[in-house]
């Protein structure tokens, strides 16, 4: 009873400002990490390193932005990393066989999208909990990729294609432009379209969403397909930046993407969060990992630190929710 009246009295306005405060804290945290790293390491503030951080953050962001939409519906997509690996290997093969980067890019995006759609079908039509369905998908994709590649490495792609991941335009890496474009599209889609608002509604209260006439299953399908397609996009960037593809490239990508979404303030319980927050989250995570790298901490420490960050971020989420109740 009280809950309903509270929501009726205080509509989106307070929600938005609270969101803004949360984002402000996260920006502050990112700046603080920058300040600490600038003091600790001489090379942190060099132009080369900053561009490198942005480029790395953009890769995490592509995967994490699609994932944000899934998490907004109170779901999870654990298959994104494995999806990147399979899409990269298939796109790479197509480029090698046909010599056409455009065809390769389309195949990569389509492969990612189809995997996402299959996830969506498992969650909606088969009603399997999303974390189990996508976890099963993770291993199916891993198996397929290793089988398909049979230990081979694809490398050597056309120079024009490699520009996508490693090229510069007016002094900025091309992935950074793509990041800005998708940040804009993602934010507009989530905040300013009816479909975006429906996704928030599904996450906040699926029953109410269904009763108010939102086609829940179709929106969920869309969300998982978008997450898969963004993984496909990430696979193209990955392929063109590394100029090679192997079956195991996806294994270290899922946890950072989930970490970026959670640090960015998107709640695992659905309905709360923004794509912009995920961008900040990707930036914070990349800064931490980049800082460890600059301070010559062994790369072996990265999974440990990412794991701790994931847990701390969810802890914060749980605490904020409890206080709000």
């Amino acid at each position, binding site marked *: 009873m009280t809950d309903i009246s509270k929501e009726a009295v205080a509509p989106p306005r307070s929600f938005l400002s609270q969101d803004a405060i949360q984002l402000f804290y996260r920006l502050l945290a990112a700046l603080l990490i920058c300040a600490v790293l600038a003091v600790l390491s001489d090379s942190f503030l060099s132009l080369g390193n900053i561009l490198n951080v942005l480029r790395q953050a953009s890769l995490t962001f592509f995967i994490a932005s699609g994932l944000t939409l899934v998490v907004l519906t109170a779901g999870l997509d654990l298959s994104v990393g494995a999806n990147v690996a399979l899409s990269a290997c298939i796109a790479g093969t197509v480029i090698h066989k046909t010599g056409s980067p455009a065809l390769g890019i389309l195949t990569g995006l389509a492969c990612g999208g189809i995997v996402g759609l299959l996830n969506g079908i498992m969650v909606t039509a088969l*009603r399997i909990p999303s974390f*189990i369905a996508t976890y099963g998908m993770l291993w199916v994709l891993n*198996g397929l990729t290793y089988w398909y590649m049979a230990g081979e490495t694809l490398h050597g792609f056309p120079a024009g294609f490699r520009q996508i991941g490693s090229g510069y335009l007016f002094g900025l890496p091309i992935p950074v432009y793509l990041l800005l474009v998708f940040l804009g599209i993602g934010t507009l889609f989530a905040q300013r379209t009816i479909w975006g608002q429906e996704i928030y509604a599904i996450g906040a209260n699926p029953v109410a969403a269904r009763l108010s006439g939102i086609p829940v299953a179709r929106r969920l399908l869309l969300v998982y397909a978008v997450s898969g397609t963004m993984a496909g996009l990430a696979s193209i960037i990955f392929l063109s930046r590394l100029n090679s593809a192997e079956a195991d490239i996806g294994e270290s990508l899922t946890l950072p993407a989930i970490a970026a979404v959670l640090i960015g303030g998107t709640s695992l319980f659905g309905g709360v969060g923004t794509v912009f927050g995920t961008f900040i989250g990707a930036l914070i995570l990349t800064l931490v990992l980049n800082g460890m790298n600059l301070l010559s901490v062994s790369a072996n420490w990265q999974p440990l630190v990412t794991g701790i960050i994931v847990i701390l971020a969810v802890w914060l989420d749980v605490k904020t929710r409890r206080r709000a109740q």
Partner: protein
Amino acid sequence: MREATVVSQPNPLQRIPGVAIVLVLLIALFSTIAPGFLSVANLSNVLVQSTILTMLALPMTLIIMTEGLDLSMGAVLTLTSLCVAIISLATHSMLLGLGAGLLVGTAFGFANGWLVAIVGIPPFVATLGTLGMAQGLSLIVSDGQSVVGIPHSVRDIYSATLLGVPVPIVMALVTYAAFHGLLYHTRFGTYIFALGGNREALRYAGLSPNRLLIAVYAIGGAMAGIAGLLMTARMNSGHPTAGLGLEFDAIAAVAVGGTSFERGNGWLLGTVLGVLSVGVLRNGLNLISLPSSVQVASVGVLVIVALFLDGLRSRA
């Protein structure tokens, strides 16, 4: 027979066909297409190779019965296996190695339970975080290298026999007996059914669901510690990626075995049949020389099909 069941269950006979049919079909399939599958040597090989998975899948059954999940089990197994290797190498004592593995495993299980019960983090994310931590620690303590030169006392565990039965199988049987007793014949077992079925009832009965939940996850961690000893003995070394992904086989075995992810009822014997199904599937695909990648993918398909059928049954 199962007085301990708190949740009213559908006729358990309805479930027996599911996993048993899967197992029989798989055995029938591979005895026709895989030469040598039905030999005594191969079948006993399947049994011995299934022991580590049994020791993970049984506690995973309890965890899933509480509507939880432990994604960290494979990574924790890797870490405890390394601990067993490193400590037994340093002290030449199998027991000290096992102790170290048990300690580290239980600590991780305890942390999982604490994050899930007290902090209130959804199990699949909490254990995904600890998965990263255990994987990272494995890389750090081993520096990414294999630990070799394990003492004979550890190595012999995998190959020794007791009254003609391989020791790993004896360990798996003892584990099954312990879990069967715990779940169906103690009060603690009754509470585990209630944790998934009706947590409020526990609270009204004056019990702390949180402490019970922590205990269930801690048991999972401890079992990963014991399985770590078997893992090290089997590989005759400790390797920083040895057990990664094994939690998936465990989840597959539990799902195929008919334990439900949503209604708080579990079936230990079903889990064992599920473990054997996964073992037969992997062994059979191996015999017809399909690579391990295809095995992984087919286990994934097995899980999705099992969950789909589970969903169908719950709606029927």
